[in-house]
């Protein structure tokens, strides 16, 4: 599973255009395999049964905004939690292609489960930390805090979250807002103390462990148990209550170090990049389902004694929407394939995918409401769930604009003044 930790793309970036141009026609497989189709159908059947829109909507107004019973089914019965985790640690040893298919299905259902935060962001960070080591605590492979946590995640008995603001941009400089403080006299060897705060973290509310990037000499990535003294998680009234954010505050919280120094930064960067690609897949699924629902509606909704879907003003918007989805699908599949293959083009691929899928998801959220007319603007209709998920994911892990801006460096298209 070397793909998780590879930041080779970052090193090879200025040559991205030239490298691709020489060998351009040999693009990776972007179609869905039979196994992926089977995985999709298993996930969809669980979500159809356990996450109807009424239930998803109702849960947004309860204290438990995450559906952890649904997550246990997806994690334990289908194996969604451990897709990216090697078999030696109890996972499925699958790749980002399969992980992207699950993300698409979760986007289709706007289900409130911590897949992105736990099975992608935290998992990739832990795998990366495991691979680079650097904590000095892992006596043998498969032991140490990262491996132990991964085993728990794969089993579906706990979830974890990477403690970064949801709006973090992959590849942008990391400025930790948490500091490493001095250990206390009674602390066991290897215990660190962290203080600071991280706003607007995704999937941290239900998490059993938080992965915190903290500044110090050297800086490091740490695991913090959710029940640790001094840790507070303040729920945020979020734009998207199907992925409720929370503000983290750490006051001298005990933590175990996973990796340190430059490796910690690379670990977080790898997680953010993979997260952006999987979030793009989620957006693709969202846009696809919103289109399906809207198509069904305009075929049966009559005004002026004809289906509203027979009016060109409506048909052309749907045609453009469908075209946008087909383009976004290609970008998303390419990004998943590049991550799975640890391709040198991964950074470009993820930027393209997150930009295209963010724009398409937003289009979908807006068009779903508009083309439903009045009913689409009501609380009872799922249109607003799609719109809110679309908008929040278009900010999460880098806006379309920031991802396109990253192409200035990746594709050698410098801004004025350079």
């Amino acid at each position, binding site marked *: 599973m070397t793909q998780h930790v590879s930041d080779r793309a970052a090193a090879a970036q200025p040559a991205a255009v030239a490298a691709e141009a020489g060998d351009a026609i040999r693009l990776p497989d972007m179609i869905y395999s039979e196994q992926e189709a089977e995985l999709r159908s298993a996930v969809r059947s669980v979500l159809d049964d356990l996450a109807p829109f009424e239930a998803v909507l109702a849960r947004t107004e309860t204290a438990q905004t995450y559906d952890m019973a649904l997550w246990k089914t997806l994690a334990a019965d289908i194996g969604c939690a451990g897709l990216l985790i090697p078999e030696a640690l109890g996972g499925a040893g699958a790749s980002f292609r399969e992980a992207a298919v699950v993300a698409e299905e979760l986007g289709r259902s706007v289900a409130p489960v911590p897949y992105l935060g736990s099975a992608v962001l935290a998992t990739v960070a832990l795998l990366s930390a495991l691979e680079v080591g650097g904590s000095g605590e892992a006596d043998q492979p498969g032991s140490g805090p990262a491996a132990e946590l991964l085993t728990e995640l794969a089993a579906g008995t706990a979830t974890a979250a990477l403690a970064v603001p949801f709006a973090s941009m992959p590849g942008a400089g990391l400025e930790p807002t948490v500091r490493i403080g001095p250990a206390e006299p009674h602390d066991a060897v290897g215990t660190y103390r962290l203080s600071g705060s991280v706003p607007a973290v995704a999937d941290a509310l239900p998490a059993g462990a938080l992965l915190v990037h903290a500044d110090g000499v050297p800086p490091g990535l740490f695991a913090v148990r959710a029940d640790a003294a001094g840790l507070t998680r303040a729920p945020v009234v979020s734009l998207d209550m199907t992925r409720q954010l929370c503000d983290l505050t750490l006051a001298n919280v005990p933590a175990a170090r996973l990796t340190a120094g430059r490796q910690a930064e690379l670990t977080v960067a790898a997680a953010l990049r993979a997260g952006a690609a999987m979030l793009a897949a989620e957006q693709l699924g969202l846009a696809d389902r919103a289109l399906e629902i809207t198509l069904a509606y305009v075929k049966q909704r009559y005004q002026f004694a004809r289906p509203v*879907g*027979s009016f060109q003003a409506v048909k052309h918007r749907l*045609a453009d929407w469908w*075209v946008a989805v087909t*383009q*976004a699908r290609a*970008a998303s599949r390419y990004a998943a394939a590049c991550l799975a293959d640890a391709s040198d083009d991964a950074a470009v691929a993820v930027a393209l995918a997150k930009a295209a899928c963010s724009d398409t998801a937003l289009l979908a959220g807006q068009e779903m409401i508009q083309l439903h007319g009045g009913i689409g603007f009501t609380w009872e209709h799922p249109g607003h769930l799609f719109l809110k998920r679309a908008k929040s994911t278009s900010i999460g892990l880098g806006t379309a604009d920031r991802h396109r801006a990253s192409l200035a460096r990746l594709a050698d298209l410098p801004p004025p003044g350079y």
Partner: protein
Amino acid sequence: MRVTGHANGEATEAGLRAQVREFLAAHDPATMGRLEFVRARFDAGLAWVHYPAGLGGQGLSRTLQKVVDAEFAAASAPTNRPERNGIGLGMAAPTILAFGTDEQKRRWLRPLWTGEEIWCQLFSEPGAGSDLANLATRAVRDGDRWVVSGQKVWTSSAHIASRAMLVTRTDPDQPKHKGLTYFGLDMKAPGIEVRPLRQATGEAEFNEVFLTDVVVPDADRIGAVGQGWAVSTATLMNERVALGAFTFPREGGMIGVSAATWRQRPELRTPGLHERLLRLWAAAEVSRLAGERLRQQLAAGQPGPEGSGAKLVFARLNQEIADFQVELLGTEGLSYGDWTMHRPDGADYYGRDAGYRFLRSKGNSIEGGTSEILRNIIAERVLGLPPEIRLDKDKPWKDLPR
């Protein structure tokens, strides 16, 4: 014979290579005339192997054609100059094969393939663009011949063509789609006048064709009387197959020109243009990936409907990129290479200046199906939305408002 199994296919491949080598041994391209050579190649069934025996082929799979072409290319053999007869080879030939009589196939396919007879397409009219079935060119039966009068437009190659795919109205009392009949017209017949149609770019890629009492033998009718719409649709389907079947590298399209200018000319950069360039670069690259994904689906036997959207995206992107480039160039964008009237072989997106591309790309969302018609096609055939309410389907054509 049809190639089915893989082993069989390999055997056929080897067999084809042997056939070509045998043919080359008997027909030395160095000593034969070009025309003589390609005629002999046609007669040997090595022209288009998926065509039937006796008509330049051997009834094999279309995918084997590249084996034959590669062997001939390796021998530096003269070609049939396919680039000169794209419409004939891509559209007329499959139409003749599907709807022509045996006599027509024997008479027309050989000179078409060898390039002795260039074909053009007389479809669009001033009053029948998107609404092709509204065409008004009349063909009136007179014994075993027809007399044709009318005006056709947007005909590429009409000035060099010796035959035309012609669709006419033979029964104005029928509803529009039912009263049409299709012909293979001899372009040298009296009463045909071809005039260049000068376009916004200054030159004339296309023609107007005026038909005045042109006599067409009934033996040149393709398909039954009144079957012209079905035959025309088959022709146009082949046009779509021909489009968008190629693959190209990153920055291989027009965006590559803009990216190169951007890198070489830092003094032209502005923040607004930078934002636009990044948008266009990303969109161009995603559309390239989508094209490649479509080809992968086709190769895997999962043909998807995505192809319908490719032309829509291509037209929009081409226009936006060309528009960007003129603006990027500033002062240089204010000049134009050449407004004088001439007759190019076709559109030239890479050999000419930004102003030309800016203007020529405006045709991309009109030619080969307007973007609006393509959206209708996607909406109705891919998304299954209800068709337009039609006022013209059941009334006699002659009673329709126009």
